[in-house]
């Protein structure tokens, strides 16, 4: 008897300015797929149909359309940037299929045809600031790549800072791929912010961190322990490119490789067995893995890959694994996830300095977010303790 095979589209750029993230996410999806195909408890197999837009925004919609049209595909896992997701969504809607989007993003979207397994603002910038502001101060410098992720995350940051009687000492954007960071570094040197929020992606981010590292070597007032660079999107996938310039800086993520849980230890062991002992695992890898895993469990339960049945199943129960307890919210299609705060340590890893006590419900429109609660916490002087 031949088992049924379901095709799964995987759409990541493995070249171009955010290739490191795309490659990591692709590996995560492919590993989940391989695990399912080797697991007898799944009475079907999955076949990967991989598309690579090579970081070129114009190629996302046509490739997604070709995959969905020609291969009888109903599920697409992919996209790193919001820009590319917005390109793919109309195609997905037209064909009545489902997009599994595994990345942190700026929120203010809740599409019926998308399952969001990455963090939205109440799961990234809010917990990041709740940690950073009381410890380092409320006067920040904001940098970002010149597109929606940087603009919107920095806009939220600006409002949070103002509410905590803080200030924005600078707000600068670089075109995606640009490494022209000198002017920004010079301004930071002059303005001495308490911390820098880094929403740059890819080579821009690496160049910025390298130049900031040099600034710290020239003037110890800019060492990370004093004025850290904090980010919602720097992960293990890029630590090799960043090198020692990253050490001491902070990131928020819904997964770090260094999570010390039984489920994560098992996950890492399996990953290294497949991909080599030196393999690093990032939140992009883990969320992409999670997306395929959830899809497979839903297909097993529903007996079909019909999008509505799959969606009904994944939004009706919680799943436990390397990312802890996760649950896709029926109302918003976003996932309850546990935010962690990591400090980059030597050897390309994060040392976890804080974790939410449990999964945080997604709030993509910040409907239930109470900014007064955050400002009260930040401005209460007895909490100003250096960790």
């Amino acid at each position, binding site marked *: 008897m031949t088992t049924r095979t379901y095709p799964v589209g995987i759409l990541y750029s493995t070249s171009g300015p955010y290739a490191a993230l795309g490659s990591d996410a692709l590996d995560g999806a492919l590993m989940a797929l391989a695990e399912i195909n080797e697991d007898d408890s799944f009475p079907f197999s999955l076949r990967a149909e991989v598309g690579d837009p090579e970081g070129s925004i114009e190629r996302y919609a046509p490739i997604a359309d070709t995959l969905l049209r020609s291969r009888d595909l109903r599920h697409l896992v992919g996209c790193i940037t919001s820009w590319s997701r917005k390109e793919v969504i109309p195609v997905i*809607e037209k064909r009545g299929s489902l997009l599994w989007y595994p990345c942190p993003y700026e929120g*203010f*979207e*809740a*599409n*019926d*045809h998308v399952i969001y397994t990455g963090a939205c603002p109440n799961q990234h910038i809010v917990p990041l600031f709740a940690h950073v502001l009381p410890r380092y101060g409320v006067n920040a410098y904001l940098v970002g790549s010149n597109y929606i992720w940087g603009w919107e995350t920095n806009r*939220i940051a600006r*409002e*949070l800072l*103002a*509410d905590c009687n803080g200030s924005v000492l600078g707000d600068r954007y670089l075109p995606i791929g640009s490494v022209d960071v000198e002017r920004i570094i010079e301004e930071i040197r002059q303005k001495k912010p308490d911390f820098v929020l880094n929403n740059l992606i890819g080579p821009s981010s690496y160049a910025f961190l390298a130049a900031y590292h040099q600034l710290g070597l020239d003037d110890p007032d800019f060492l990370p322990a004093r004025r850290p660079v904090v980010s919602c999107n720097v992960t293990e996938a890029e630590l090799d490119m960043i090198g020692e310039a990253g050490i001491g800086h902070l990131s928020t993520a819904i997964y770090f490789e260094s999570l010390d849980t039984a489920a994560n230890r098992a996950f890492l062991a399996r990953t290294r067995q497949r991909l080599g002992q030196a393999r690093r695992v990032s939140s992009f890898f883990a969320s992409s893995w999670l997306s395929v895993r959830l899809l497979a469990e839903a297909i097993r339960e529903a007996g079909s890959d019909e999008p509505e049945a799959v969606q009904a199943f994944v939004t009706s129960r919680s799943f436990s694994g390397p990312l802890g307890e996760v649950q896709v919210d029926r*109302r*918003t299609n976003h996932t309850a996830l546990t935010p962690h705060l990591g400090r980059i340590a030597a050897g390309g890893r994060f040392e976890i300095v804080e974790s939410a006590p449990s999964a945080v419900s997604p709030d*993509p*429109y*910040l*409907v*239930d*977010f*109470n*900014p*007064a*609660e955050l*400002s*009260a916490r930040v401005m209460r002087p007895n909490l100003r303790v250096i960790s």
Partner: protein
Amino acid sequence: MPGNAPHFRTPNFRSWTAIVLHRPHADADALLRQLERLGISGRQVWPELTPEDAAASVIFFDADMGYDGQFPWEPGAAPIPLIALLGSETPGRVEWAMRQGASAHLRKPLGSGGAFSALMIAVRTFAAQRALEGEVAELRSRLARRSAVARALVLLMTSEKIDEATALQRLREIAMSARQSVEDAADALIASKTDRNDKDDSRSRA
């Protein structure tokens, strides 16, 4: 809005109420789902609004099947922001929706998005429109009362034997000390002079 966070201006529609004036339809359902995600409690109503419905924070209305008399107020006089739901883009229907005073619109068919931006635009436009209308009414009234100011100036110039500039200065002083607008001060001045003249007239007639 949560209190004590004056700078957090990200729009939050939590605990708002919305009326979806649309016959039962997948579009109305899709819109209600969007509203639920924004923390808004929505209610589908058709065909007519009651005066109580005007207590809602916002009304989404069907521009395709809508007709005059559905709203408990004159066209264009809605006390809350209106958002048109447009399927047909024929000029007649768009015109009708605008006549109701729509501050924003959403195209049908309705899917997963659009409500948040339409709400942001409608609320801001409605408030700006309101402020502008108030300002225009104020300016119109001042314009209409310019003849009274001119009359008051003539009265002051003749009774106190002063020139126009001094009379204007004088009228401003009177208004300021009475904490009145110049127009109100002019009305009061005219009334008091006329009153005195009336009395003088009646005395002379007696």
